[in-house]
């Protein structure tokens, strides 16, 4: 009985055309992932205008394929070039590249393929088990719960992203600022619209995403034009490790799968933070921690299992709460809206068939990724070696089309262009754009639900501590902030201690 909706999902996803879209999406994703600089949200943005005329499920399936495929594709360039194809694969380079250098490129790719597949399937099982459970609970959640989940997500994204928490928080705050533009949800007053009619419903987030993920990447990669990649080896063939050999490292795989799913399920953090966490943990737990960084198979398995497991993890908040786990799912949420589906707690109830179709597609894409990675690797390695400058014009055109398609007016295209430049400015100063994106998306969710919660409780703030789960969420937020502030203060004290020492030294001279 329990499996019936899932089987229905498979029945839909296995229809010939849908299956084709899954496989094609996965292959495209692997290519995109293999090319450094091109990311999965960017590829999904490029697909937006192309899928606009399709039914919602096939459109989402092709995006899911891309999403899954990029996770493995990113490891190809990490292993063969030491330049990770995606930020999430950065960790894979630590051990994958040394393996390739000592002539074991095929084996490294094999471990990456196997790790990604097992991790992906692990995450998928988790998604399939938890989506219905969380979905049922979410339908009964109140505005106060949703607001707290949003706040926790924002705090986490700012502390997990690479770089400093201060920069993360600045990015988040900037995103929140953007999200205040438009009509006040409570009073209907126009905020920061300066009389511009188009701004009344706020800055369209899908257009902002197109700018931040699509145009920013093209702009910041202009310097790479005309460069071709040189591989460590020209004889690339995947050597799948014996299953027994791989299972020796079950601990690394399990750690990766676990971290990937849980961190993926936390709104906003995504694969990037998760793979570093998993790598560090796998190293601590390993019997041979010193081998890490010199080409240990575990060092490839752990991050690769992680980044594919996140694909399952991110599905949980996306499908049940309408909150994206990372950049790619944020764009997919935009695609849902374009197709007339309202993401959120009612999604499971109103469009359960699509939810299950997408989940089935996620499992199938992972399998497709394994087969493609095993048998067709040469194609991806060939793509990897090409000059990708010819791609940029296409990306620009499709990104603009995607922005235009959100309302069928030109206004979002301007928004995308402005955000492309804003993103470039932020990226070049080390502020991760994903924090801005999460601010823009979670900002309205938090604002609306917080004000609703207060309106419902007659402005009684204790509503945010009224139930067990709410207390837990508040405690989590407080703990995260406490840890971060303590670390920052400790670091400062160290600095202060260091300065007088220097001063005395100078005085003595």
């Amino acid at each position: 009985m329990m499996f019936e909706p899932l089987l229905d999902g498979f029945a839909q996803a296995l229809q010939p055309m849908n299956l084709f879209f899954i496989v094609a999406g996965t292959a495209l994703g692997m290519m995109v992932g293999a090319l450094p600089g091109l990311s999965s949200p960017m590829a999904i943005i490029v697909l937006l205008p192309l899928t606009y005329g399709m039914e919602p499920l096939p459109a989402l399936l092709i995006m899911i394929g891309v999403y899954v495929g990029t996770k493995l594709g990113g490891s190809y360039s990490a292993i063969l070039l030491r330049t990770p194809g995606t930020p999430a694969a950065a960790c894979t380079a630590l051990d994958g590249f040394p393996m390739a250098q000592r002539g074991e490129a095929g084996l490294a790719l094999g471990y990456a393929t196997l790790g990604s597949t097992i991790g992906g399937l692990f995450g998928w099982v988790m998604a399939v088990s938890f989506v219905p459970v969380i979905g049922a609970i979410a339908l009964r959640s109140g505005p106060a719960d949703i607001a707290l989940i949003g706040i926790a997500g924002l705090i986490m994204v700012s502390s997990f992203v690479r770089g400093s928490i201060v920069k993360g928080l600045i990015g988040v705050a900037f995103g929140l600022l953007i999200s205040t533009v438009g009509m006040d949800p409570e009073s209907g007053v126009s905020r920061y619209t300066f009389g511009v009619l188009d701004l009344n419903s706020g800055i369209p987030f899908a257009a902002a995403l197109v700018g931040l993920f699509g145009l920013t990447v093209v702009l910041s990669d202009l310097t790479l034009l005309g460069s071709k990649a040189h591989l460590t080896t020209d004889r690339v063939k995947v050597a799948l490790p014996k299953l027994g050999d791989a299972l020796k490292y079950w601990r690394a795989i399990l750690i990766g799968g676990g971290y990937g799913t849980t961190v993926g399920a936390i709104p906003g953090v995504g694969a990037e933070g998760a793979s570093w966490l998993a790598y560090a943990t796998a190293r601590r737990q390993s019997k041979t921690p010193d081998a890490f960084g010199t080409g240990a198979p575990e060092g490839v398995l752990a991050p690769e299992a992680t980044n594919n497991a996140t694909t399952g993890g991110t599905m949980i908040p996306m499908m049940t709460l309408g909150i994206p786990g990372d950049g790619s799912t944020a764009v997919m949420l935009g695609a849902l809206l374009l197709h007339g589906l309202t993401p959120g707690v009612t999604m499971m109830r109103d469009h359960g068939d699509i939810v299950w179709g997408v989940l089935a597609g996620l499992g199938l894409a992972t399998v497709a990724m394994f087969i493609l990675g095993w048998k067709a690797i040469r194609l991806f390695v060939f793509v990897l070696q090409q000059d990708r400058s010819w791609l940029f014009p296409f990306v620009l055109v499709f990104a603009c089309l995607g922005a235009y398609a959100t309302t069928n007016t030109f206004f979002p295209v301007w928004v995308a262009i402005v955000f492309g430049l804003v993103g470039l400015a932020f990226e070049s100063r080390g502020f991760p754009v994903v924090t801005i994106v999460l601010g823009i998306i979670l900002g309205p969710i938090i604002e609306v639900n917080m004000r609703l919660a207060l309106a419902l409780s007659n402005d009684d703030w204790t509503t945010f501590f009224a139930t067990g789960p709410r207390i837990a969420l508040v405690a989590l937020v407080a703990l995260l902030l406490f840890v971060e502030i303590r670390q920052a203060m400790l670091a400062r004290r160290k600095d202060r201690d260091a300065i007088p020492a220097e001063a005395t030294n100078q005085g003595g001279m």
Partner: protein
Amino acid sequence: MTRFGKLAAAALVGAVTLGQGSVASAQDYPTETVRIVVPWGAGGGTDTIARAFAAELEALVDEAVIVQNIAGAAGATGSFQVSQAKADGYTVLLNGSSDFTSPMVFQDLPFGVDDFKYVGGFFVTPTWMVSHKDRGYESFDQFVEAAKAQPDTLTLGVGGATGAHAMMAHAVRGYLDLPVRIINYQGGAALNKAILANEVDAGVIHAPVLLNEVREDMVNVLIAGGSLSGITHEPVRGTPTLEGTDIPISIGVTRGLMVPADTPDEVVARLSELAMQATESAGFAAFGDKFGFAPTWLGPEQFEAVVRGEIETFQDLKTRFFQ
């Protein structure tokens, strides 16, 4: 004849021919694709109705009838674009009356009622106040009594700070001097979920939203903004209306067609005739059956009267009951 005279004569002849041309084209209108602009995203109530209606209209003519969603600025972007479009009857705005009028009352918009000609209304639905069964309100009177017994405690959810839902809620609160708290949700979908999750004492939403839950006896209908005689679920057809409860207004949404103000009258008349046929077609009746409410046709004058009447009502409610 002077050169200027020749020019003037030529212009006159041209104008006459042009005039005849437009009469001729009105008779065989449409001779090209008709674009129906829905100023909302795909998948909402107005969009669903528009697509069903466009399909019926297309079946009546030799040309294609397409629906284009031009969303943004709470319906204003698409409406404004149509008001600026070529006034030839091939760009038509399809919007809900109260979705069209309430922004005019609450915001500064670059267009107004006079920038359009009214082709007709084809789907008239009132708003209704509904309540989760577990709240225990069987009738509007019970709700009113409970609200008076516990001032400022009962909550009444609406799907947006302005618009038909909010108008009805403020009218109920204002006219009856009822101490209830109005809770603004972000749109109908969020309110829908809140009512089902039993988060509010009652909610005001467009009929027939939540009809399935009404049928399954999960949700009670307390009062309606207008007549529910067109609803497919027989037991709620006799629900009391605002007008029957000392609140002298009716509130709902009439989906209808509008064209730029300069559109020739003959073209409007022809389009109106076609729209009436589409409304009364068997196919659209079947859609109404599925949707939960029977379509009704309102002619151009009636539809325009609805739109202008709403503006007056909303303006009055705004000055009296909105802070």
